[in-house]
């Protein structure tokens, strides 16, 4: 268990030393990761409806011109 921890992998076939091949990133090679959201504060339902989410950490407003 402990020697797998540095890779962040739950895959028993991924040994701890693979850490050196992931260039400092947690996780094993050849798969995608999205960090899990941790519950924190939420906006009111009315504000959430206006913004499209009640979670401040997921709010990514877009302004045209940022990319053109």
């Amino acid at each position, binding site marked *: 268990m402990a020697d797998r921890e540095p890779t962040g992998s739950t895959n028993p076939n991924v040994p701890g030393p693979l850490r050196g091949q992931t260039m400092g990133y947690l996780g094993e090679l050849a798969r*995608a990761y999205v960090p899990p959201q941790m519950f924190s504060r939420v906006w009111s339902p009315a504000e959430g409806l206006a913004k*499209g989410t009640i979670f401040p950490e997921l709010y990514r407003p877009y302004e045209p011109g940022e990319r053109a």
Partner: protein
Amino acid sequence: MWIYEKKLEYPIRVSYTNPRLAKEVITQYGGPDGELAASLRYLTQRYTMPIPQAKAVLTDIGTEELAHMEIVAALVYNLIKHASVDEIKAAGLDDYYADHDRALYFVNAAGAPWVASYIQSKGDPIADLHEDLAAEQKARATYEYLIQLSDDPDVTDALRFLREREVVHFQRFGETLNLVHEWMDSKNVF
């Protein structure tokens, strides 16, 4: 089985008749990265998900995409319902009018009809969830292009809401991918 709510998930209005904008926004109704494709993709892929959490996420998000399809339909219809034939011709929507009048139909911005090959249902949960993550990013990008093209602040407001929902869905599919990986690792299935 669904329970029907007789209102839109997000209230919409349009500032004025605008068949040019309708011609563009309709791609999120029947285009490759639109809401019909999204809802059918998720509601179809759900059956071969290996864990209940993944089935639930696909069913929930597929259901919400149906609600978004309804919002896009309402936007498009409100933009064209009072348009004169001259306005429709000036906006380049006359080809569409010849087949559909001012009715809603599943086409992309260039008029190509919706096809099932816009979506995949692979039977491999890792492959399907990667498609779903990509689909959310493609839909987000499309909403950004539509926001750039919109000259109606009321339509832009609805497009912003729909775009933000794609961001949230991406996060949920990512968390689902992690759960499916953990389940596969626990089963020693690689």
